[in-house]
């Protein structure tokens, strides 16, 4: 069965990757991946700060217990 669109036209069209690729390399330098960098640092900060808070709550709760 023949496709309705000529294959040359498909190849020449801009492909909508819909977020399936992480970045498109730019000719002027490395890709802008700073959002991932900030995301990674934010996750680490939240995990460590959250654990410190959990430990502080546990200690406070043990101190208060009758």
């Amino acid at each position, binding site marked *: 069965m023949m496709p309705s669109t000529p294959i040359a036209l498909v190849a020449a069209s801009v492909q909508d990757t819909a977020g399936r690729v992480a970045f498109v390399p730019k000719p002027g330098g*490395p890709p*802008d991946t700073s959002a*991932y960098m900030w995301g*990674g640092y934010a996750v680490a900060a939240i995990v460590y700060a959250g*654990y410190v808070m959990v430990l502080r709550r546990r200690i406070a709760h043990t101190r208060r217990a009758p």
Partner: protein
Amino acid sequence: MALVSSTTRGPGANSSSASAPWLRVDDHGVDVLMIVAALACIGAVVRALFFTPADAMLGAVQKIFYIHVPAAVVGLYIACGLLAVSSIMYLWIKDDRIDRLAESSAEVGLVFMGVVLTTGPIWGRSSWGTWWAWEARLTSTLFLWLLVLAYLVLRGAVESQESRARLSAVMGSLAALLVPFIHLTVTLFRGMHPEPVVLAPEKPKLPIEMLTTFGFSTVAFLLLFVALLRMRYRWATMRDARAALESA
């Protein structure tokens, strides 16, 4: 060292260790070691984000390296190593303080490994185009995380203090056996995870600026581990002392 020289047994026998010098905080509850560790981590992060060059190929996301790898070094090698050593020592001399040390290193190690398992996919999404790949390094690290989680669940499920300590010591020492395997996965199996760049067999494959930042970051994470371990151990000591008082 007093921590391993005592052979006293029973939950109440070691309650005096709550006032051990290395566990003390000041009268206002300020933990100086935790403050020092937090400042060191902030300094390392500022250096990594603003004073270290970005990778020419990967861009800014490569800077996740400065939290991902130190967290792996501390979480896998140091925390799991401490878990294994203290578990084996507990089976040998049956000291409650060593059991608490094993429990604390497992939980703090779980947090560090959690950071490894969350920052890794974020980096992987940008570099590999996918959040996760079922390849040897990632999968075995996830298995270790699940084993350490199971270790902590087991501790909560056993009523008897002595049985709990003995069973978890066996499980802790066996779980840590996975660490050398995880280290070798990148050479034994063909996968997507890169081979070691700092602990490379010949010499580190990093420029000096990146290597210095990595060194700062590793020391900061090590300090954070010690501070969290101390805090967790202190809580475990208070908890056991209170339980001993309640059962008396």
